[in-house]
């Protein structure tokens, strides 16, 4: 145990450098993903046939293929058409697109669980469709989506370790780097696991607080 602690603290500065990338990847991607998810969900529920088909195709394409394959396609094929992305940017784009598709499904479910009468009432006082969505439907849907959103964030934090494979020095990559030099694979990766776990516990706690804070009184 004391040996583990020793190795852990020696590795910690490099692991923390990795954690910065991990969190950067996860936070930026969850936020872009939320934007994409809201857009896609609104198009799927309220859009015409064309936007419905397009957004459904997007969701199915993303959900039907592995994230790693999506990342590789983005990172290795774009240079062939002259677009060069840094590993970090490629990872953020690919995680955002991926998370967006999953978030779209959660948000769509939440939108559809808002009572139909809410939209009728919004229309009846003269709101446009867009005002009704923005002022009445989304504020209720987004509250309902917080638990799934927490899950999505937790998944995303763990999935960012894939960025290691295109060369982003995130937490797992840093662990590999440290362990390949001191050969303490078991101890270093236990430390890495411990860091992931702590971060995820903190985030789960933060989001459950957020959920309580925005809960509608009396409901």
């Amino acid at each position: 145990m004391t040996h583990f602690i020793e190795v852990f603290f020696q590795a910690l500065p490099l692991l923390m450098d990795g954690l910065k990338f991990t969190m950067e990847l996860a936070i930026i991607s969850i936020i872009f993903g939320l934007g994409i998810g809201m857009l896609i969900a609104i198009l799927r529920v309220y859009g015409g046939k064309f936007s419905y088909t397009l957004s459904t195709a997007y969701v199915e394409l993303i959900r039907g293929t592995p994230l790693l394959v999506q990342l590789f396609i983005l990172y290795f094929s774009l240079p062939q058409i002259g677009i060069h992305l840094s590993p970090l940017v490629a990872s953020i784009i690919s995680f955002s697109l991926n998370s967006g598709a999953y978030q779209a499904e959660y948000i769509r479910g939440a939108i559809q669980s808002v009572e139909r009468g809410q939209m009728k009432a919004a229309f009846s006082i003269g709101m446009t469709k867009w005002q009704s969505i923005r002022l009445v439907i989304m504020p209720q849907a987004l509250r309902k989506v917080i638990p799934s959103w927490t899950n999505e964030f937790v998944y995303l934090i763990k999935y960012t370790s894939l960025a290691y494979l295109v060369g982003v020095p995130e937490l797992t990559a840093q662990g590999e780097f440290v362990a390949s030099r001191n050969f303490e694979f078991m101890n270093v990766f236990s430390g890495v696991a411990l860091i992931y776990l702590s971060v995820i516990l903190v985030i789960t706690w933060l989001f459950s607080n957020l959920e309580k804070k925005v809960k509608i009184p009396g409901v």
Partner: protein
Amino acid sequence: MKLLEVKNLKKRYKNKEVLKDISFDMDKTETLVVIGPSGTGKSTMLKCINRLVEPDGGQILLNGQDVIKARRIEKIRQRIGMVFQEFNLFNHLTVLDNVRIGPLKVKKLQKSVATELAMENLRKVGLASEAKSYPAQLSGGQKQRVGIARALAMEPDLIMFDEPTSALDPELIGEVLEVMRKLALDGMTMLIVTHEMGFVREIADRIIFMENGEIVESGTPEKIFNAPEKERTHQFLNQFTKFWREK
């Protein structure tokens, strides 16, 4: 000019003709009550008037303006209030915000003006003290009174009520009818669907009896209740009087 004119209104769902050929009109400050068995198309008719449901044919004029041809229906909906059986208050907003959101976001009034307007209408329905509550914290009767205040705050030309007391416990019906009675006295133009026959007799300027998507007959409360022309009207109203006698 009539405040509302409905001419040959038609609506069908799949192969069911829900509204066959509805025509009637309303004067300013009139209280017109629509009665009839359930499934007859009363709700569909109200929803056609503000185009929550798209009519298949006919004409609707609000102050002479064609509702069905209107390109921006939301402009017309601002002038037609609607009160729902199931209240449909905005769950995530306080009572004040429920009433203020229309003047503020739809009419784009200044916040202080919209707030004053909302409070004034909450006072009218006796709920100024609940301004900070959320819908889920109110009784059914209070919810419906907020629903009425929300419609009033848009200062509409006409308010439509679709069975406003049907979802309420009996002891809460009175407070909502009381508010509606006051509105009628204030000169609000009201189109009401209800089964509260005692209230109808007292408040209606005119009554329409509807069945199977058609207007069977219409007239003053005296005529409809005391001397209906059609046998169906008589039968329908008889159910209620029998019911009262049994009670």
